[in-house]
């Protein structure tokens, strides 16, 4: 099955995910949290990611945050945000929300032209709200269960379902289709660093608030995803 998936989605990420799944099935010992069946593996991977973050990613993000002036950071965020609007629109369509989907495509058209290649988010100022959609959310709307929490190397918190979503997200990602390898790699790194930099302010809060950082991050991720799947209005859970 992995071979077919790999044919469709390109080899690298598929291979990467296959390796993760294999590792998980090897190490996984059932924890007592039903939402986190691979807790043993996840905790180990969380530790590895924390290490990578501390040594490489966070310093990069901090440097970027310190050096780049606010308008530059805003433009970088807007640019990649604009690129992502195409498939946000597609996902809204796939989730049976043609109105939202049309608005996303409208955003893409406006920001790519009047917004000068997406550097400015003119559409938001015109009242076309930016949405947050991806294939993981679409699969959830189609009825797929989350398959358990899963911490991926480098990509961090996901669920099994969101990992498959990531596979499709990456396969269709316009940035991954840039022909020039150097431009593609630079764009990928810049986007990653920009996203990480935008999360810097919450680092301290998580660090100080959590008794057990692993659980805190996991539960925050799961709550956040639930909120996104229901577009900000999830049904209330029983206490």
């Amino acid at each position: 099955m992995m071979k077919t998936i790999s044919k469709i989605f390109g080899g690298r990420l598929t291979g990467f995910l296959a390796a993760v799944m294999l590792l998980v099935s090897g190490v996984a010992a059932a924890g007592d949290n039903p939402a986190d069946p691979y807790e043993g593996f996840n905790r180990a991977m969380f530790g590895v990611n924390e290490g990578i973050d501390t040594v490489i990613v966070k310093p990069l993000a901090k440097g970027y945050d310190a050096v780049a002036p606010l308008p530059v950071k805003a433009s970088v965020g807007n640019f990649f945000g604009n690129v992502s609007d195409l498939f946000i629109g597609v996902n809204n369509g796939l989730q049976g929300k043609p109105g939202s989907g049309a608005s996303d495509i409208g955003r893409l058209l406006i920001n790519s032209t009047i917004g000068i290649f997406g550097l400015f988010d003119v559409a938001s100022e015109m009242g076309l709200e930016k949405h947050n959609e991806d294939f993981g959310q679409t699969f959830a709307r189609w009825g797929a269960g989350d398959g358990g929490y899963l911490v991926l190397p480098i990509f961090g918190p996901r669920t099994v379902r969101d990992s498959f979503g990531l596979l499709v997200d990456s396969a269709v990602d316009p940035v991954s289709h840039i022909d020039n390898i150097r431009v593609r790699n630079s764009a990928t790194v810049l986007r990653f660093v920009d996203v990480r930099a935008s999360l810097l302010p919450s680092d301290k809060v998580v660090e100080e608030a959590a008794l057990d950082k692993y659980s805190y991050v996991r539960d925050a991720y799961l709550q956040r995803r639930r909120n996104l799947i229901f577009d900000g209005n999830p049904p209330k859970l029983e206490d």
Partner: protein
Amino acid sequence: MKRFVFFALSALLAFSVWAQETPDAMVKRITDEVLLIVRTDKNLINGDTKRAIELIDQKVLPHFNFQHMTALAVGKDWRKATPEQQQRLTAEFKTLLVRTYSNALTGYKNQTVRYKNFKMNPGATEVTVQTEVLQPGGQPIQLDYSMEKLDKGWKVYDVVVGGISLVTNYRDQFGQEVRANGIDGLIKAIANKNKSLEAGKK
């Protein structure tokens, strides 16, 4: 002097609207008050956490029901705790929440708050007030307050940021601790966390 008159006036105003104030109006009033101070207070702008805690203590905390928040965070185990344990738990959890989220105020950078349309049934005793924090160059962040009507007026018992409840996000961690070391173990764990944060501040 001018400042004093302004504060006296706003205090008077606040008092007179107290009784019949709707929950959304209350959230708006307090948010506006706090943001005004955050924008103008030099110490806060310079990242003074102590000042932020002071401000939260005066302006925000009176409108929170920490007992309910703690019960919600602890979940099923809450009923196993004695009233004395519940009190200590509430005190420690309050300290932890106030300290960690006061920091968010010192990180304030030109955000503004948008209030979503609020509808409430006349007899309602539980509501959610929905707001959005807008930041230049970033996506809006959803910020919701779950509130309940008590004898002393409306009180907040949960704060939900981008869909993440700052209260129930503790449930699993607290459950872990209670299962391993009992209610007293949990109280001790939060107290230790508070102490280490206090020590790190110096």
